């Protein structure tokens, strides 16, 4: 699914909205997340996931083809951690329902911290 397909789908579901408004809604959401990350803020969307920015220190890298060393400057990388509900849905567990009755299961990671 692309952004334009998402917009078309939302426009279909909301016939009372102009498509250009749907476009603005979708764009605003992603712009808001991007702007928050550029401030170094974290974006936490419970059930969906959390976006954050991690700092990677400067390091000495290596060109894998030639083996020469290159200085890699410090940089920030955006990071997304999948929320618990979405992770469970991807694995057909509990389809959005509150997760009771299932035994404890180690999935490697815990909920967004």
């Amino acid at each position, binding site marked *: *699914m*692309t*952004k334009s397909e*998402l917009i078309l*789908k*939302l426009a279909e*579901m*909301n016939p009372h*909205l102009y498509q250009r*408004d749907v476009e*603005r*809604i*979708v764009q*605003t*959401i*992603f*712009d*808001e*997340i*991007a702007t*928050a*990350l*550029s*401030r*170094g*803020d*974290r*974006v*936490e*969307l*419970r*059930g*969906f*996931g959390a*976006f954050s*920015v991690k*700092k990677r220190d400067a390091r000495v890298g290596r060109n894998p083809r030639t083996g020469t060393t*290159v*200085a*890699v*400057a*410090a*940089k*920030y*990388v*955006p*990071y*997304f951690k*999948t929320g618990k509900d*979405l*992770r469970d*849905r*991807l*694995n057909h567990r509990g389809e959005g329902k509150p997760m009771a009755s299932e035994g404890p299961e*180690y*999935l*490697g990671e815990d909920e967004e911290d």
Partner: protein
Amino acid sequence: MENRTITRADLSEAVYQEVGLSRNESAALVEVVLEEISAALTRGESVKISSFGSFAVREKGQRIGRNPKTGQEVPILPRRVLVFRASNVLKSKINKALGGETKTASE
């Protein structure tokens, strides 16, 4: 710089300010956007948002894990995980704002 955590409420507020629907409808639309993305991913589709990034579902095979507390070996079942790849536009926006290097390679 004091960092905050942005939530659904902030996204709805931004939509409310930008589009001029009611607060309730703005909040509902934020929810629908997240739900449509989640539904597509659950179907196994990847979701590409140009100039933001892409979400893709990756199939992981079974492997032997270890309970880090007890050291006991436990099988980790095959599962699907979500990976997010930020677009170059998003990466460079963040690095410009926060003062990191915009390009990976040295120039």
